[in-house]
């Protein structure tokens, strides 16, 4: 906002037509308010211009691994925008919001069905909050059974980065389990780590390597025998929809990032929804509230906000991000049973198509069929031409494509984690593949072109160190004076 001009006013206030009041604590008032001084038209132009710098799934391909940036059907927004959905208040009497509660109740049932679980809690408002809810339930379960000594949570090194943080926040000690040479959980290491102090295991299935852990049955058995709870990180549920039910594999609890798997514009950091689905033994501990259905004697159903018997409590105010729940419900109901299964099929085929076309150009660390995302390595480009994963990603911006996730998972050097999702056509995938091949040739012939990329974006290569250490997050008059 460097267009501030002292004294310029963007709005005209009407004359005072009410008596002047004296404030109880006038010292709270500031004489000066640090605000940019601009006209309305300048303000509108400023925001319109910076909005054009933005990139979203509605602009172009967005293969950001692990984030499941799929196209969000506009119908879902339309549903969430209905006055009965968008203009209600959490404090309204239950009798006046029966439709909204019915939607939540049905979504609870559908998500439990999709994941093979007994019951759903919709309160968590992000994936990591769903993880925290799962870990708090795990703790409550062990304490309830008189086993406070169960303090260790095992987490494979290919799990989502938030898992150790969630376990730690819930008061557990985290023990990392290595992956074996196929990218599966290392069974020997797991056997060695379990004991009487085991609280549970957090497994991302498929893992952040985009691989289905084929040791899963053995993993479940080991954890079960040791008295642990099996937590499933459902961030990659997209790959399993309509094919595999985590509950049937033996998981006790799984969260779903509704904003990823069931569509929601989430590139800007929210709003999310991290529903938790639980098997029988964790049902009493679900976060409150859950929606319950009561059949009246006259045959009419009534929906109420209920409190699970031994609930871990609230995850936040009210009952979750309701708009996100409406969109998820709309997406699932639009697809139906058949459509849900086609999501995972198309997502997995798309990722494998990209893998088959790029594995000889970039390096494939695990020579296996992948799930909904593929992890490649730019290691050879770095060794041969001094071009890093970061350089490849910055060059993709020049071609109008959002970069994939990079340098994650940490177990792969110079990782490029590509998730195309089911909503992309073969033409889009072919274009991406062509661009990635072109960039590999550029790395060889003209590495500096990549080192200095992006060339066509509104901002060139950013100083990432300064961005982290001296973030410039809001307008200050002093900074405006400098400019």
């Amino acid at each position: 906002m460097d267009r501030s001009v002292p004294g310029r006013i963007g709005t005209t206030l009407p004359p005072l037509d009410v008596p002047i009041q004296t404030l109880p604590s006038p010292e709270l008032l500031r004489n000066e308010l640090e605000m940019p001084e601009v006209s309305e038209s300048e303000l509108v132009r400023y925001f319109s211009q910076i909005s054009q710098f933005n990139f979203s799934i509605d602009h172009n391909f967005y293969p950001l691994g692990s984030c499941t940036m799929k196209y969000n059907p506009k119908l879902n927004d339309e549903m969430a925008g209905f006055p009965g959905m968008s203009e209600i208040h959490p404090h309204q009497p239950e009798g006046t919001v029966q439709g909204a509660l019915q939607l939540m109740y049905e979504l609870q049932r559908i998500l439990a069905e999709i994941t093979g679980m007994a019951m759903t809690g919709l309160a968590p408002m992000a994936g990591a909050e769903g993880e925290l809810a799962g870990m708090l339930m795990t703790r409550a379960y062990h304490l309830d059974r008189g086993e406070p000594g169960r303090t260790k949570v095992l987490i494979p090194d290919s799990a989502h980065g938030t898992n150790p943080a969630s376990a730690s926040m819930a008061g557990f000690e985290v023990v990392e389990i290595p992956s074996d040479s196929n990218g599966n959980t290392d069974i020997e290491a797991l056997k060695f780590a379990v004991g009487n102090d085991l609280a549970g295991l957090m497994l991302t299935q498929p893992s952040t390597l985009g691989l289905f852990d084929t040791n899963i049955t053995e993993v479940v058995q080991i954890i079960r025998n040791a008295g642990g709870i099996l937590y499933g990180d459902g961030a990659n549920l997209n790959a399993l929809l309509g094919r595999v039910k985590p509950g049937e594999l033996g998981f006790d609890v799984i969260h779903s990032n509704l904003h990823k798997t069931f569509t929601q514009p989430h590139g800007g950091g929210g709003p999310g929804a991290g529903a938790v689905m639980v098997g029988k033994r964790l049902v009493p501990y679900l976060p409150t509230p859950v929606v319950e259905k009561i059949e009246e004697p006259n045959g009419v159903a009534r929906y109420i906000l209920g409190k699970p018997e031994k609930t871990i409590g609230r995850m936040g105010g009210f009952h979750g991000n309701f708009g996100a729940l409406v969109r998820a419900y709309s997406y699932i109901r639009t697809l139906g049973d058949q459509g849900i299964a086609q999501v995972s099929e198309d997502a997995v085929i798309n990722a494998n198509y990209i893998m088959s076309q790029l594995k000889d150009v970039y390096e494939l660390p695990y020579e296996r069929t992948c799930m909904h995302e593929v992890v490649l390595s730019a290691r050879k480009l770095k060794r041969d031409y001094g071009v890093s994963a970061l350089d490849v990603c910055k060059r993709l911006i020049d071609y109008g494509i959002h970069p994939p996730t990079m340098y994650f998972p940490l177990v792969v050097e110079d990782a490029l984690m590509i998730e195309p999702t089911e909503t992309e056509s073969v033409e889009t995938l072919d274009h991406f593949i062509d661009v990635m091949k072109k960039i590999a040739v550029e790395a060889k012939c003209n590495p500096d072109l990549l080192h200095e990329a992006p060339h066509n974006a509104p901002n060139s290569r950013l100083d990432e160190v300064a961005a982290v250490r001296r973030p410039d997050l809001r307008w200050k008059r002093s900074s405006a004076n400098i400019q």
Partner: protein
Amino acid sequence: MTSPANLKYIRDHDWACFESDGTAILGVTDFAQESLGDVVFVELREVGEAVTQFQPFGEIESVKAVSELVSPVSGTVIERNDEVFAKPELVNQAPYEEGWLIKVKVSDTTDVSKLMSAGDYDTFIEPDFS
């Protein structure tokens, strides 16, 4: 690249320089700083706190990732390189010199036989390109 021969190394890419007075200076290797990229924050155990061999003695954050700093020795922290808090880029610029991290009074529970020589470490980090 060849790692300095007078230091001892561990698989987590940290080094220890043993002094004749029973102390050791710790830091991260050149390979580590190269892999991490630009370091933006360093967090270290306080002076007086205990560190355990192969357990964390702090955290290091780069533009790519946050990693644990793993101690090659057991003992008590007697000095910290306060300069790296203000200038974390020292870790990138001189990981074996100005970018050192902590100085530890080494306890006799340290198993020196589990540490790698410079030659072993260089072999360990050699990429296994197929």
